[in-house]
């Protein structure tokens, strides 16, 4: 009888603590990681995309709609990373506030089908990740002003980790000869990374993998093959959240190898080395440096 009573009391306490904590629903795995870093145990974080899922092609479900209905705050990447703005639409339908984490980022403009668009993969540069984190800190402080100092302290700590990550990436990249710094990936997700760390980017698919449905233009594919041959690229890289079929074909055609698999639009599963943002970036850089040096 006593044991039952204690169990019930513990359950009641757990329920109370969960009820006390606001629910923050994030669109992508990277944003969910940033929210956890800033909010700590003060918030509950839920992520709509599972590790390995593609935000460009994701179709939201009724379970997502139900989750957002319970949310106190929604966080999205924006810049159309979420195909057809599914996160903003879910939040709007549920009448919940949504914060776009790319606000304030120094955007990179890229050509896409004859027009210029803002590249949404801004988190690939740790300095931009710092902007995401500060935006989330401000949003959480607005949501829970009493815990503002705590969020600021956690943010400062995480920013220091991002600073260390940035310095570490520069050290690792320094061992790759400058002429070999060409990053060929499945889709155009690494432009920010390439700009910051001095790589040239090439990909058979543009900034959105939604293009894959219509098939890639032959001239784009040919341009990538020629780029590989003319620049003496040693290896190309597939991505964990995108089909590797096209890039494997290109690698075979160009007679080069697959250098490894990179985390791009999604982080890794829990327990994997890429399960959080810093781990994901470290894994990517180690893979790139090992294949291109």
């Amino acid at each position, binding site marked *: 009888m006593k044991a039952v009573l204690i169990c019930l009391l513990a359950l009641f306490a757990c329920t109370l603590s969960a009820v006390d904590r606001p629910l923050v629903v994030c669109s992508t795995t990277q944003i969910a990681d940033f929210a956890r870093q800033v909010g700590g145990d003060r918030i509950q974080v839920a992520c709509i995309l599972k590790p390995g899922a593609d935000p460009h092609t994701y179709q939201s479900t009724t379970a997502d709609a139900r989750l957002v209905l319970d949310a106190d705050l929604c966080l999205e990447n924006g810049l159309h990373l979420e195909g057809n703005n599914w996160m903003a639409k879910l939040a709007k339908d549920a009448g919940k506030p949504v914060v776009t984490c790319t606000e304030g980022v120094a955007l990179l403009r890229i050509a896409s089908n004859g027009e210029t668009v803002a590249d949404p993969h801004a988190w690939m540069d*740790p*300095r931009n990740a*710092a902007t995401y984190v*500060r935006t989330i*800190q401000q949003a959480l402080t607005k949501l829970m002003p009493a815990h503002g100092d705590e969020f*600021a302290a956690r*943010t*400062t700590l995480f*920013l*220091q980790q*991002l*600073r260390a990550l*940035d*310095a570490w990436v*520069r050290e690792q990249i320094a061992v790759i000869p400058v002429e070999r710094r060409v990053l060929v990936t499945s889709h155009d997700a690494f432009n920010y990374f390439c700009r910051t760390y001095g790589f040239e980017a090439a990909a058979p698919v543009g900034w959105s993998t939604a293009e894959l449905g219509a098939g890639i233009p032959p001239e784009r594919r040919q341009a990538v093959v020629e780029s590989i041959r003319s620049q003496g690229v040693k290896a190309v890289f597939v991505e964990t959240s995108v089909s590797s079929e096209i890039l494997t074909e290109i690698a075979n055609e160009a007679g080069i190898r697959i250098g490894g698999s990179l985390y791009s639009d999604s982080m890794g599963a829990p327990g994997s080395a890429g399960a959080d943002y810093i781990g994901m970036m470290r894994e990517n850089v180690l893979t790139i440096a090992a294949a291109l040096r």
Partner: protein
Amino acid sequence: MQWALVLMVWVGLVGGLALYISARPAPPVVAARSLVDSAAEVTLQCTATGPMGRSDDPFALNPSAPVPALRAAVGPVEAVVIDQLEAGKQRDIVLTGLITGRNEVVLHLAPTDSVVALRCVVMVNGQPRLNRVLWHAPGDAGVYGLDLNLGDDVEPDYGH
């Protein structure tokens, strides 16, 4: 009856603890160490191999607040803030509030784009007492500590 016994044990424990806290002897007062003779002149000479200046720090909580090139503090007491460090040009910082014995001089350096070596020489009454080179990595807003031992029987430290 059982509850009363439990209550009595608790009262005894808490009461005993309270009694111990109120009656325990006060900790011994550590005599303050004397400050270094005010007539002694202690100067930190800093020379950087690359230019450093106020710039935005992308990893700061408030990135729009520029970071000074160098901030020096003796322990927690700020000694000086220098906005710009020119390459090869020596900057002298007079250090005050030093005590006889071990002092920690803390240097905060702004993030740089390339590796910068900062030579730090501490002069006591015109004689070098400590000589260190700090290697400041790119992208890093570094915090470095210099151990400065000021005692009559202390040998000069040249970092060898």
